[in-house]
């Protein structure tokens, strides 16, 4: 804005007071007002909340990392009452049976030379196959798994894993027929 002129005769300031009103001394500039956009700020806030949620969720699941079957067997007394994840390779042989009125599959999981019998409630994963490692979620139950006598080589150690969540942990081999199947006991090649 151009200041309102305060003119005397001939367009000149008419007295000293006018000169004071019309001060030409450069004034310090006002700090620039930052215009912010509320929608963008809301979006950033939502994303921060989402980030915190993801981190909390991840940390919350920290106790549910995968135990290998051998480790789960070794720590059985410690894990007796807890729910955990266990990774292992199903051995050939599968029994379909009802457990507590629910359809279930019973099989033996292995890691190294260690075996554990499993009663998995519900349908197994679509690509569930002997030799293809799986991650199961559940806990130890005292007593043999139902139908364990029909398995090829059960652990039959007086305990079994009762699980209700199964995901497949496929390997990293894409050589088709030339692919190596991870034998029980070779967990190094599990993908």
């Amino acid at each position, binding site marked *: 804005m*151009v*200041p309102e*002129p305060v*003119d005397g005769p*001939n*367009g*000149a*300031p008419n007295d000293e007071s006018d000169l004071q009103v*019309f001060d*030409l001394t450069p004034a310090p500039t006002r700090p*620039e007002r*930052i*215009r*912010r*956009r509320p*929608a*963008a*700020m809301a*979006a*950033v806030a939502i*994303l*921060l909340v*989402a*980030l915190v949620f*993801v*981190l909390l*969720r*991840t940390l919350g*699941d*920290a106790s*549910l*990392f*995968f*135990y*290998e079957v051998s480790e789960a067997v070794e720590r059985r007394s410690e894990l007796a009452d807890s729910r955990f994840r266990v*990774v292992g390779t199903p051995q*050939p042989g599968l029994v379909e049976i009802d457990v507590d009125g629910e359809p279930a599959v019973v099989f033996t999981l292995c890691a190294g030379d260690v075996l554990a019998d499993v009663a998995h409630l519900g349908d197994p*994963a*679509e*690509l*569930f*196959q*002997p*030799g*293809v490692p799986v991650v199961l979620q559940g806990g130890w139950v005292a007593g043999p798994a139902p139908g364990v006598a029909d398995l090829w080589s059960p652990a039959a150690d007086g305990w079994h894993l009762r699980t209700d969540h*199964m*995901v*497949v*942990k*496929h390997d*990293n*081999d*894409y*050589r*088709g*027929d*030339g*692919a190596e*199947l991870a034998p029980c006991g070779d967990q190094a090649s599990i*993908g």
Partner: protein
Amino acid sequence: MATTTDAGLGERDTTGSPRSRLLGIATLIAVAILGVLAFALTEPDVRIHPETGEEFGQFDAVRMLYVHVPLVIVTYLSYGICAVASIGVLVKRTPWWDVTAHTAAEIGTIFCGLVLVTGSIWGRPVWNTWWEWGDVRLMTTLVLFLMFTGYLALRRITEDPRRQARRAAVVALVAVLDIPLVNRSVEWWENRTLHQRSTLGELKIEDLTLFTLFFGFVTAGLVLAWLFLHRFRVGWLERAAIDHGVAAAIVERQSETSDAEVRRSVGEQPEGPEEGLVP
């Protein structure tokens, strides 16, 4: 597409050029060839179990390999470019670096979103789950996606381009630290992920499968290059349009205030009679 005439940059009304059109045609051809290779010529992953004689493997779901993995690579590449350009923003402080960083982040975020979607589609038949909370690679990838989405949102908070550029550059440099975590997570936390270890690193892929995967890398690279070229040009035109608008506003404002008014405001006699002021 933005009209460049408005920004005073000539008569072109497109961000395309003969070379970029050539690149676009090459990209489309590559996508078509990749589609044929991935969905028709390569074999499904079917193996015969040595003990039971039953078929097992990923079957047709393995075809997602040729899309998902190249998308991951171009996501890393885009965010890598963004990080380098962000350093340029902080050191050189020129708009070129900022437009480059913004472009790379935007395209990288699209690719990262596609990585999450294609991974989920692949995971359902193969893993038996769409999503697995606690899987360290999924989580670090989601965090990467969220951080760069935040980067893009942050750029819109203020209209001051310099402030915008500096803040965004710092966020990008922090966010990009997640990439090594995403990439190495399958080795560092093997018992916390369903993801497989590196296939290429252990050479467990060969023949047409390997060729198709590499062709996927080339195709994704072409898509990245084409998108980058156009988005960069749009970004540059946006910047030019802002500068042009500011310059035009200054000229307009100057024309509103006549020389005589300015002279009178500082107590000087105007040099000649002015229309409307002559008695």
